[in-house]
């Protein structure tokens, strides 16, 4: 637990100093939305359904970048070995990196939500408050698998290809559930309409956060 707070505090301090990851993530999320606005026919593509879809595309892409960023912070000067050498337990390291990736993603998603409302002609109203927890669940789920997988793909060739290749298929269930739940929330439907989807999201999170927590030590150590 001490390791978790120490590493997370250090990561946030580094991020506040440069702001690199935050800016990169926000820019990416916005670009994704812009691309989708032009890729979709504006006559057809409006309303909650498309908006929710666009938001989740942005989430997946920013998540990929966020998880990679959180781990590459440790690659300069061999800092990752410094962490492995220290008494910090590997699970604490995973939790800290997961939290950092999650925070980066949420910042990017915050920006993406604002842009979504503007681009897709929605309203700034309470519907957004209901989307927030859904997005948070989705971001946590993505961060949980992406952090685990980024530690693996960081040591493979073509790592920027391998991470999405592994992470996206695994994320499909949460993606389906998240888009449906967000659509329901944005359309102003009651919670019961999205209940099944929320349950899937929660199950996904429980499963993959604990799997990552248990398996991280096997991917972070060296031979």
């Amino acid at each position, binding site marked *: 637990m*001490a*390791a978790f*707070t*120490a*590493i997370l505090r*250090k990561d946030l*301090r*580094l991020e506040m*100093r*440069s702001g690199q990851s935050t800016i990169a993530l926000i820019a990416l999320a916005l670009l994704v939305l812009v691309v989708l606005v032009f890729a979709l026919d504006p006559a057809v593509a409006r309303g909650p359904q498309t908006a929710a879809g666009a938001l989740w595309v942005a989430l997946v892409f920013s998540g990929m970048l966020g998880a990679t960023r959180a781990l590459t*912070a440790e690659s*300069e*000067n*061999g*800092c990752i*070995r*410094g*962490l*492995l*050498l*220290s*008494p*910090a*337990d590997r699970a604490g390291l995973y939790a800290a990196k997961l939290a950092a990736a999650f925070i980066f993603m949420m910042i990017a998603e915050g920006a993406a939500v604002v842009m979504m409302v503007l681009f897709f002609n929605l309203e700034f109203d309470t519907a957004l408050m209901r989307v927030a927890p859904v997005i948070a669940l989705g971001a946590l789920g993505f961060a949980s698998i992406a952090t685990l997988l980024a530690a693996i793909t960081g040591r493979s060739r073509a790592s920027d290809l391998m991470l999405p290749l592994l992470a996206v298929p695994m994320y499909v269930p949460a993606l389906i559930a998240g888009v449906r739940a967000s659509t329901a929330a944005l359309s102003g439907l009651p919670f019961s309409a999205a209940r099944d989807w929320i349950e899937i999201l929660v199950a996904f999170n429980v499963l993959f956060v604990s799997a990552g927590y248990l398996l991280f030590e096997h991917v972070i*150590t*060296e*031979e």
Partner: protein
Amino acid sequence: MAAPVVETHGLGKTFGLHPVLREIEFRLLPGRGAAVIGGNGAGKSTLLSILAGLSAPSEGQALVFGIDSRRLGPRYRRRIGMISHRSYLYPNLTARENLEFYASLYGVADAPTQIDTWLARVGLEASADERVRAFSRGMEQRLAAARAMIADPMLLLLDEPFSSLDTDGQALMSRLVVAALARGAAVVATAHAVPEIENAELDLYEIVRGRMFPLKEKEREEVRHGRLRTLLGR
């Protein structure tokens, strides 16, 4: 007799088809130091990585504090300090922040005082609030020494600690090693050829073709005087 800090049995490491280390039998008692010399790629760094638990041996085992090096828990990792050829310091944090971070990871008691003491000890109090990115290689190495020793490790692993240090820095490093030995820590240091640790009584070893040999008195003298004669040449 005190239990050895480091003990290896038939230790070997193979990278691909290349046996880097083999059949290494090595013991180190508390308060004793060993200097391991060997050329580039002789396997010195690999040996230290294994002792630190960062790398798994291919054959045999290494016991550190009596524990298999692959299974060193937090309690034991806390008692190991390492200086490698990479500094493990965050370039965008200041010297003080780097030490604060490692002090909190190692659970150092009374961290602020310790950090000040160590910054003074390695002669960096004037640059304490500068970012490490702006440091010269030598300053970074000094800070790395403070980072490695801030939690008073009982096993110090020093991978070519004198490289990139000026004369003052080398003298400082020697003092730090002597002080560590004096408080009962065990030290393993590596060097290209001449171990520069002037005052410390270090047992000398040489790695030749993957195996580690203790150097005898006469060979020691020669090594001390900078005339390294590898065993291979005999």
